[in-house]
């Protein structure tokens, strides 16, 4: 290899190493940021938060069996392949989650994009959304509220597949009789969330 070729291989010596500029702000300005996501730390481990221009579309527990790449591939297939890491669109959700974990917030205000849910599953999750902070319901009750009193198994499945845990509080749904039942992020997380809410709601 000639010295000329070697020099060409080195590329243009740029100021500051010449690293590429971010593109997410320009993408958002052009209306092309269909899914923006960020990861954040929480008392329940790392969370992936994804939003669309309509609202919060996905929240995933990265330390509980959900793989970041798999979540993004799924969003690309089911929402839009225009998926970019971008903090600003996720900021409102991040702030509300922080406040929730610090017990300074009992209701989420960020809009929700329900498009990853359908039919009976969506009705189950919308009924779940109405369970107040610190309160609980049962699979059976939620199933009837969703219009199918005998569909508590299907309701359980829908809750297990909740694309937006914490914000859509499927942790507030227990078995009739008060046993915990199941939880997508693992039962320990369900326990932590219920304890966190109980402490605040039982304050005099």
């Amino acid at each position, binding site marked *: 290899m000639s*010295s*000329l*070729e070697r*020099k*060409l*291989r080195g*590329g*243009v*010596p*740029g*100021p500051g190493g*010449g*690293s*590429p*500029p971010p*593109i997410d702000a*320009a*993408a958002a300005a*052009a209306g*092309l940021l269909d*899914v923006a996501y960020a990861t954040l730390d929480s008392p329940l481990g790392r969370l992936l938060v994804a939003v669309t221009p309509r609202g919060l579309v996905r929240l995933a527990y990265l330390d509980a069996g959900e793989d970041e790449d798999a979540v*993004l*591939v799924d*969003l*690309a*297939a089911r929402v*839009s*392949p*225009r*998926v*970019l*890491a971008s903090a600003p669109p996720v900021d409102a959700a991040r702030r509300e989650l922080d406040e929730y974990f610090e017990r300074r917030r009992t209701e989420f205000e960020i809009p929700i994009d329900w498009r990853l849910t359908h039919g009976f599953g969506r009705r189950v999750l919308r009924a779940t959304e109405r369970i107040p902070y610190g309160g609980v319901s049962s699979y059976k009750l939620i199933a009837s509220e969703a219009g199918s009193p005998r569909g508590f198994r299907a309701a359980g499945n829908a809750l297990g597949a909740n694309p937006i845990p914490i914000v859509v509080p499927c942790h507030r749904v227990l078995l009739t009789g008060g046993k915990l039942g199941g939880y997508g992020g693992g039962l320990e997380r369900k326990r932590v969330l219920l304890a966190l809410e109980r402490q605040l709601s039982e304050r005099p």
Partner: protein
Amino acid sequence: MPRSDVPYPLPLPPFQELLDAHGRDVHRFLQSLVGQDADDCYQETWIAALRAYPRLRDASNLRGWILTVAHRKAIDRIRARRREPVPVHELPERGAPDRGFEPGDDGLWAAVAVLPDKQRAAVALRFVLDAAYAEVASVMGTSEEAARRNVHEGLKRLRTEYAQ
């Protein structure tokens, strides 16, 4: 293993994956083609790609695709520059009035900048990105033979014009 003769299109990966995998190379490619305008061209490239992405039918060579978009944006930029009036005191002694390179690079990239468009892009792909001739050809939409010729002619010209 993905096969090229699958009857259905490959699913499009999340766009961030392309950016992570090829952002650095796209930027280096553009730096060598348009110098200080690289950041602008880089944004234009990715925004154009993002716009077209959901309609892309063939996801089997995304690197080639994004480099093709970058090449097109660089050519647009170079042509636009040539149409701009250049202040008299900035007129170079010879060659096309291309700007955008720091004097600190000892003249190599300024010499690359005055190569004919095809030679400059071929040289940048071949050496800066270490692309095989087949890839040079596919990005530039030429035959492999023409790609070799462009690289060869470009190098020859650089040897004469850039005092080593």
